């Protein structure tokens, strides 16, 4: 068999896969590991729909090669909830209707999680600039910002 053998950790689980050199992490997640939560909106790192967190850093998985996952710690949307308890961000997105079609939502949740891990009490401006790497075409961002503000408040009290 040809291909590059990769060992990595995804959402806390040890995972092994084979991939071609040119496959992106996004390709691997979606096509080899059946983790289709990350979406391809553009393939060029402009829309953020493929956002995942690699070694604590928010990245566009379409700009990371599958092989680069070797030895790293990867978090995807599939690992955000704990069992059947939604993460506060997920719950607040639902409550505030911060999604309409929902295609950008996994990427936004990853980006918001990353933002709030760095800034616990962000201003509206910090939220807006912190999420500027994620495109949404349905909502106009208003309810997304409100959901993040509310989730941040809940997380600060926890």
């Amino acid at each position, binding site marked *: 068999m040809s291909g590059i053998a990769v060992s990595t950790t995804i959402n806390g689980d040890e995972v092994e896969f084979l991939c071609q050199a040119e496959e992106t992490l996004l390709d691997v997640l979606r096509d080899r590991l059946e983790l289709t939560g990350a979406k391809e909106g553009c393939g060029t790192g402009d829309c953020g729909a493929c956002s995942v967190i690699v070694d604590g850093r928010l990245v566009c998985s379409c700009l990371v090669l599958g092989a680069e996952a070797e030895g790293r710690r990867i978090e995807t949307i599939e690992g955000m909830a704990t069992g059947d308890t939604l993460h506060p961000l997920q719950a607040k997105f639902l409550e505030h209707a911060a999604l309409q079609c929902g295609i950008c939502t996994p990427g936004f949740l990853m980006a918001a999680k990353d933002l709030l891990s760095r800034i616990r009490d962000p201003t509206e401006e910090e939220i807006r600039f912190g999420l500027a790497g994620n495109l949404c075409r349905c909502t*106009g961002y208003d309810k997304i910002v409100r959901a993040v503000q509310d989730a941040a408040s809940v997380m600060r009290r926890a």
Partner: protein
Amino acid sequence: MTVATYSARDFKSVGTRPLRPDGVEKVTGRARYGADFNMPGQLVGRILRSPHAHARIRRIDTSRAEALRGVKAVITAADLPDLTGGDAGLHDVLDNCMARAEALYDGHAVAAVAAVDARTAREALKLIEVDYEVMPHVTDVDEAIKLESHVVRQPAPHSGVDPELDFSANLVKTTQYGHGDVEAGFKRADVIVEHTFKTEQTHQGYIEPHACVANFNSDGTGDLWVCTQGHFAYRHFCARLLGMQVSKLRVTSSEIGGGFGGKTHVWAEPVALALSRKAGRPVKLVMSREEVFRASGPTSATSIDVKIGATKDGIITAASATLRYTCGPYPGGWAEFGAQTAFACYNLENVRTVGYDVLVNRPKSAAYRAPSAPMAAFAVESAIDELAHRIGIDALDFRIRNAAREGTRSSYGPTYGPIGIGPTLEAVRNHPHMKAPLGKNQGRGMACGFWFNFGGQTCTDLNIGADGTVTLSVGTVDVGGSRASLSLVAAEELGIPYEQVKTVVADTATLGYNDTTEGSRGTFSSSMATIFAARNAINVLRERAAKTWNISIEEVIWEEGHARATGAGHGNLSLSLKEIAEAAPNTGGPVAGHSEIVADGAGVSFATHICDVEVDPETGATRVLRYTVIQDAGKAVHPTYVEGQFQGGAAQGIGWALNEEYVYGKDGRLQNAGFLDYRIPVCSDLPMIDTQILEIPNPNHPYGVRGVGETSIVPPLAAVANAVSNAVGVRLTHIPMSPPRILAALDAQKAG
């Protein structure tokens, strides 16, 4: 006979804001969109596209591609025989799916492959040899209409009324609307404003590229998993083009990652089915972002001349517009929509609009949320602002003075009944946004917008489970949360909690025909069908209770989720929905209600927007400071999702107004086919978007619901343009008002 007239009531469920039924799947990444589905043994499909804006296809040699190991099928137009039977419109669809003789735009599909993996498919595309004879091209609407222009297609028959001047064969449709005598009207005017406005082509910009998995079996049956706004429409087109019986093609709508009109037409789906047919295996075909921009359906680019005259008291005496819209390489009726809607907000004695649909070597124009209306509104509302300014009347007062009302003869013909534009203008007058102070380099603009709303063929099935919970199957694809709204409606009619209803979108094999989710019809139509289905189910429930109690059905009413016996001697007989459902096996079987209707009489919709901007005079960059949407929704079934529609439409309009455009090179190739250079608004570009929902009931819907999805994209181009023009003191006439355009306008003003 079901009668869809409004009757007032106190709502218990409708109007509340519960969580949507598909929500948890979407925030956990489990929801399955077009590209999230796979079939065993599936192949990867990829499409080869023309790099030329216009070229004759002399020959295609696929032999080397076919010989590549791992390639299971290669197709060209030869593999899609013409089954259109002389239907020109259908033939255009076929030709757009795969070019038959000429590539008509940069990105036009010319061949396709199905291979075992992506790498092989990519290599196979490179091995297909296409012998092109490059031809001249034209991409600009004003160039294409000139008599001397290169012709995009021959033959291109002209339809509509006679154009008054000599134009090239690229003019394929001329339409005209209006009434009165505009010449006489202009003579009476004290002030006349006349301008030409241009808007560049934009794309709906849905984040999810077109994606499908197609399976064609050798016995003529097939399956299609696809992201679409209308799976029944897709079934119709795919079946026609592939010669399949409609009942044998089962189309399942995935969750959809945005459509806004762009997913109401087929693009690559017939190609995927044709590949599957040839390969004998399922084919997954996903467009790249670049392909979406180059080869799906952006909206028209336009060039619009507007002339409006008014007395010094601010009453419009005459209004006219000539609207030139691109339709891509195939005829369309886009300018007609512009001609109909341009002056629809106003009460005019004399009005005349002429619309010209023009062929250009660009991808086929498709609907984009209130198609054609935003551009026309931009031109008219800019001229209105200018006229008000020249006369010395406040922009809002001028509009109130001239606004259409009940009894106004609309600019597109019919006389208006009760309409909502007056209330939206009054609401603007009273809105705190209008009183907020403005600083240096800041400007405020407002604009009105109009859109038709539509009904259409709609089916719903309401099935009651043995535990008394309800499944509602609908056929209108859920683009923005309508499953929540429809569950609320079912809960309302049945008198049960929202949490006991689950709404699902059925596939084409499990429900009757449903028109596409467009024309702001999703909630309007399906809620109407849901109400009737629920009422039919209630009749069955009453009948079962009557049978159980051995009384006549006339003595049973349905109230708050219970069958209750009325009349003397029946005491307090009462059965809950759950009790009747549990007993159903012995009272006649499963309990259900169905409805197949043509929802109609959706009524028209008006909105007024207010926008504050700040323009940096050194860079020409515009920042939107504040934005308010005021629109009549009839009855907001789920107010949060109505707000969402208002905000989303406004955001798209803001992007269109300030930055989005298709940029074509001299070679006729699209220069910015990606989200980096086709820049839609990001989170940091926008402020919070305030919304005010007016509820003036629609007399033709039981709950008064109106369509809401589209109208909110109509005013923003003009609201932003008026704000920018006020901020910089120069009338901007070219959309998008990107920084270079604003700087050029400022420079021109300084010079001239």
